[in-house]
């Protein structure tokens, strides 16, 4: 009878069944009442199948999927439940950050780096760092801009920390919530191959905000052109990470809805970065090197103001 005890088969989570049976196929999360039996995991779907093969990464991806599926789920009022969201090692966090900085076309951030182990460590601490980076850097840049002026009295502007915290944490939680709700709703209407859990979306958004930390630090430079170039670069990188992550989730849908979703995601991201730049950083338009010569009344007025 000891032999029977040895044959304990463990329950695998949903993420592991498909790759275990068929390593070359994509992982399909079938949710909602519309279970269509024509969708078989074994059939490669032309270009979609090859692309998703690539997304699964290297050889031990199915092993990792198997291991990920064995996560125990404790009830939500225990401490262990929340510990499952912090089950990452240092190198994993670094890998995820690296993945958010280098968006490679065709590589899906969620599939490649998160792999059914979404963590809350990254999003939370990246947002915390970003809050302080923006507040401190904004304060420093205002100080440097107004440095020569006699009427300027330096204030630490501590209020802005709370405002920055509210904005950034609201963005990092509410936008994923809205997006997840929207994707769930579309899922019930149109069969999508790829669907993400709420935590995975929070994870992607959190890590995609990492690029803004060095951007915020570099925004100290009081040149408008430099700041806008930085905005473009940061938006390009994090926007493309988000777009490439969510495109597979909506591409089955109506063309216009899919495009509208991606455009909205990028637009909200733009709004966040431009809004932060405008609110926390004064415009460096005070030109201290005004020519002392004659002429225009507005020049003399500006000189008098200084």
């Amino acid at each position: 009878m000891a032999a029977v005890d040895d044959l304990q088969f463990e329950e695998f989570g949903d993420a592991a069944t498909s790759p275990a049976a068929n390593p070359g196929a994509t992982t399909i999360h079938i949710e909602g009442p519309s279970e269509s039996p024509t969708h078989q995991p074994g059939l490669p779907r032309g270009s979609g199948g090859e692309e998703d093969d690539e997304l699964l990464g290297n050889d031990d991806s199915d092993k990792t999927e198997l291991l990920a599926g064995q996560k125990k789920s404790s009830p939500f009022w225990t401490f262990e439940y929340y510990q499952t969201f912090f089950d990452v090692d240092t190198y994993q966090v670094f890998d995820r950050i690296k993945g958010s900085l280098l968006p490679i076309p065709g590589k899906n951030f969620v599939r490649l780096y998160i792999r059914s182990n979404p963590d809350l460590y990254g999003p939370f601490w990246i947002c915390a760092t970003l809050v302080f980076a923006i507040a401190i850097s904004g304060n420093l840049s205002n100080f440097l801009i107004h440095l020569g002026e006699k009427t300027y009295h330096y204030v630490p502007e501590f209020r802005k920390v709370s405002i920055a915290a509210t904005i950034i944490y609201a963005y990092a939680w509410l936008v994923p919530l809205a997006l997840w709700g929207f994707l769930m709703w579309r899922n019930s209407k149109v069969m999508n191959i790829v669907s993400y859990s709420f935590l995975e979306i929070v994870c992607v958004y959190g890590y995609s905000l990492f690029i803004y930390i060095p951007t915020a630090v570099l925004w100290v430079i009081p040149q408008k052109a430099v700041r806008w170039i930085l905005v473009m670069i940061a938006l390009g990188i994090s926007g493309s990470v988000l777009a490439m992550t969510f495109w597979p989730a909506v591409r089955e849908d109506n063309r216009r809805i899919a495009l509208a979703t991606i455009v909205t995601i990028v637009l909200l991201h733009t709004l966040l970065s431009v809004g932060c730049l405008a609110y926390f950083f004064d415009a460096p338009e005070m030109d201290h090197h005004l020519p002392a010569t004659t002429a225009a009344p507005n020049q003399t007025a500006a000189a008098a103001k200084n």
Partner: protein
Amino acid sequence: MAKAAESSGDPGTTTPRPLMRDLKAVGKKFMHVLYPRKSNTLLRDWDLWGPLILCVTLALMLQRSSVDSEKDGGPQFAEVFVIVWFGAVTITLNSKLLGGNISFFQSLCVLGYCILPLTVAMLVCRLVLLAEPGPVNFMVRLFVVIVMFAWSIVASTAFLADSQPPNRKALAIYPVFLFYFVISWMILTFTPQ
């Protein structure tokens, strides 16, 4: 010997716990922070009096003498308090969620006591600010704050690092770095009227 007799808990006596003993315990922990060695004293006999004293001192010193301190934009007393305690609780929760085996209050105790170097920096900055303002003044303050910031980090790492799983040490230490960095920033940007 007298202290041992007092602490043996003889139910017949009505001797109150001596204030001196508690003060000495707090003082001993201050010494441990100033000369950090790997010792378990801070962890074993935790108390929150030291952190409370340090936090109140720091918050009081960060206040300005002006009547209308709202306009100054500096942190209010309550804000400093909230940042220190909320920050310490968050770091503790983070370290426990990552799998650290330190208790909640032990971690609060260590983080609170390791604010001591920064409180000393605040004292020094206030003294330096009594002198002539200018770039030299700022450089001196910057140097003092940086040194004390490094001291706080080293002290808290010496106590906390062992309680983390080895492959997550950096993940647990980074929030400590952020915490002391924010406090250092508040100290450095303090400008009196």
